[in-house]
């Protein structure tokens, strides 16, 4: 055999949680200088496998070999000392601290008497951040950074050590295309230095451009390893979900109803200004733009979380002031927020309670909440969205990232809103469920709901929308109908090029 010694090899790993067999005899290896993609549905066990690798979980059975030697890692620090670094799917930064303090958390450079050597710290961090082409300085407090930039801080952390293996768990879920390019450069750099890379993502295009090999997990068990150059998306998908996906785009000219929501000259400094559009029952409108274009803020204003400083909102032709979320909800507006962990979920509550949270007041029998009614709702949306959880009693904090997102979506779908706003709805969701959610949005529209989809993913916007509104720097730059849209025009519209909009 002329094969290289794997940088890291896992053999027959088993990991169980109460009620869940998360990993069931999984084999996995990474060669030096290889990008090895790990694929699987939400809850397949990818993150769990990587946490075993990074010393955060102890496997119930199985062995871990690093450079050919069997090791046991009981803490993340052990793993780090062995050169294994994990970049988490869920951000794990200390929000009150600066980027630099987070990057060297626990290992701040010292001077005499244990004083922190701030100068060295900031010099080193600024160096790493500039390698990542980040435009903020290392003394920025993390809470003030956008999610994408927080992700960059997380990545910067991994670059502080001499790594043998770097694991990226869905690193691009909240990155823009430009940031992705930077990340891919970094990954290729590391690869050229002989570092083994594990790359987890639900985006096939990334996996096919980046990886050398692909390992597929399904329901916690090992499904096989493919050489990327010798396979295609269809084969991988079948391995992953057991069937092929029909991704054909179905633009039916929808039966449009009356205007449900109209916005005239809406402004909210400094996020967006003079925004006007109308939304009819039965249509899906996609808001496309770069991160920071003001789309999220617009959604939050419609949902009553922000006060506009000009303009009007009309629902069914009548001017309304939505001053609070409960106002908005009462008028039939729902918002699936961008950031599930901070804005969408109560992680200390179980799945059922999270799902019924906004409507629990209506699910009462006498003075008490009717558990039966709640479970009925939960079951319905668990089946519809294929949410993977051992039971409704499971705390949401124990679900896999994608399944957490599905709980948030289920929560607002079950409210049967008239206007459903979804902000990056499929972030971290596997291809099968993504198609399912897209179908669901279309289906809702067909039933007469009005849907707004905010997304930074062009294929998604193109796939689900009847109409696309492009935003740039807080202003609407252009509107396209699904029939006339071209990718080029869309890219121009969101970068402020063409059509007389100053760049």
């Amino acid at each position, binding site marked *: 055999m002329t094969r290289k010694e794997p940088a890291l090899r896992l053999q027959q790993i088993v990991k169980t949680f109460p009620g869940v067999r998360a990993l069931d005899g999984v084999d996995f290896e990474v060669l030096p200088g290889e990008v090895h993609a790990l694929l699987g549905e939400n809850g397949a066990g990818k993150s769990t496998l990587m946490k075993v690798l990074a010393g955060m979980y102890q496997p119930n059975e199985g062995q871990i070999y690093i450079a050919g030697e069997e090791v046991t890692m009981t803490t993340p620090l052990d793993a780090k000392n062995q050169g294994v670094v994990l970049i988490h799917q869920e951000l794990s930064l200390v929000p009150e601290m600066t980027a630099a303090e987070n990057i060297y958390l626990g290992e701040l450079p010292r001077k005499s008497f244990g004083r922190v050597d701030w100068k060295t710290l900031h010099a080193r961090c600024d160096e790493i951040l500039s390698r990542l082409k980040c435009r903020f300085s290392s003394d920025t407090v993390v809470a003030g950074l956008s999610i994408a930039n927080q992700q960059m801080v997380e990545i910067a952390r991994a670059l502080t050590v001499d790594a043998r293996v770097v694991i990226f768990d869905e690193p691009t879920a909240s990155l823009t295309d430009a940031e992705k390019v930077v990340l891919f450069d970094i990954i290729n750099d590391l690869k050229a230095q002989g570092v083994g890379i594990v790359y987890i993502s639900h985006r096939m295009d990334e996996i096919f451009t980046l990886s050398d090999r692909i390992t597929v997990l399904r329901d916690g068990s090992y499904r096989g390893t493919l050489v990327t150059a010798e396979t295609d998306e269809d084969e991988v998908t079948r391995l992953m979900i057991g069937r092929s996906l029909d991704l054909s785009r179905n633009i039916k000219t929808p039966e449009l109803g009356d205007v449900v929501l109209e916005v005239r000259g809406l402004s909210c400094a400094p996020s967006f200004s003079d925004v006007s559009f109308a939304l009819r029952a039965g249509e899906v409108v996609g808001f496309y733009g770069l991160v920071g274009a003001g789309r999220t803020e617009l959604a939050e204003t419609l949902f009553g979380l922000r006060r506009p400083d000009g303009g009007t909102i009309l629902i069914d032709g009548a001017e309304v002031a939505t001053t609070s979320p409960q106002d908005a909800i009462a008028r039939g507006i729902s918002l699936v927020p961008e950031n599930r962990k901070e804005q969408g979920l109560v992680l200390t509550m179980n799945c059922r*309670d999270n799902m019924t949270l906004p409507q629990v007041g209506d699910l009462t029998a006498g003075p008490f*909440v009717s558990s039966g009614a709640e479970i009925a709702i939960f079951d319905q949306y668990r089946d519809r969205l294929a949410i993977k959880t051992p039971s409704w009693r499971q705390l949401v904090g124990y679900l896999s990232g994608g399944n957490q997102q599905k709980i948030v979506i289920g929560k607002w779908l079950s409210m049967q809103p008239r206007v459903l706003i979804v902000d990056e709805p499929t972030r971290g969701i596997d291809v099968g469920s993504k198609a399912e959610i897209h179908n669901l949005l279309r289906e809702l529209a067909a039933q007469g709901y009005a849907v707004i989809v905010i997304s930074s993913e062009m294929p998604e916007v193109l796939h689900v929308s009847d109409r696309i509104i492009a935003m740039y720097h807080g202003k609407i730059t252009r509107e396209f109908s699904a029939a006339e849209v071209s990718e080029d025009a869309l890219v121009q519209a969101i970068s402020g090029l063409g059509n007389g909009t100053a760049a």
Partner: protein
Amino acid sequence: MAYLTRNALVRWLMQNPIWGFVLIVFIFFSLMTDHFFDLRNFQNILVQTSTIGLIALGMTLVMINGNIDLSVGATLALAAAFAVDVQGWAMFATWGSWQILPAVTLALLVGVVLGGLNGFIVWKTGVDAFIVTLGAMLGIRGLVFVYTGESSFYAMNFAYSDFSALKVGPLPVLALIFLLCTIAVHLLLSRTVHGRNSYAVGGNREAAVNAGIRVGPHMMVNFMIIGFLAALSGVLLSTQMGAATPNLGRDYELWVITAVVLGGTKLTGGKGDIIGTFGGVLAIGMLRNGMNLMQVPAFYVYVILGSILIAVLFLDKHFNRQAEGGLRL
């Protein structure tokens, strides 16, 4: 099958280590002292713990909601002072035993109003409940001294001071009130919309707001409930003593918080339940009672209770560490 049920019990105990502890304490004192295992003594324990227990019920609500209330001891004292003083007012002189009614009503009202005030300030100013109620604790205690003129009030109506000796079957009436309140607050927390929303607000305030939950009113209601329970506790305590002293209820906030935390409620909010709190209250009650029977000097009791608090929380962390580690907080 037997294995399964035993397993379920073990798991339940691991999630509620306080009840395992209650069991151990119970067996320990039953074996070690002659007078512990005795119906009389059990009645005693329930009566002794009812004052702290009532407030602990309210504290559980407030802490799950993400707040804390340090002013309960002072509120208790003020309510007790009102209850004892008002029944002696001249305008009720001809009311006979009915004079107790306006007195107790007013006392409970004082508790509700003070609690509501705490809640309102926390809601509207956004200042941390710890600070607000710390201020309230000092301020209300000051009012107690102003009101009582630094001396004690004595209840002249014997019906009032005899109340605590009443029994319903084998249950002393104070114990009965505590048990009924326990059940009521348990149902409120676990089965009603208000209870559910309290968990949500304490667990993740932003997500709760996004779900259309009005955070402020829920907080205020919980503060009013704890104010009511603190006042009720003050009234009951004053019936036991037949008097209200200005120092009544000192350090109670510490005992109460100890009991609630022992019962598994988290200071960070969003987690806890009444079953745990009830266990915490019983544990403290039995320890104080048992050590008293064993004639352990009072100061050692403090040392032992302090150590136990830390030990139980350590065990809790140990048993639940793996699970917590995986929680994507």
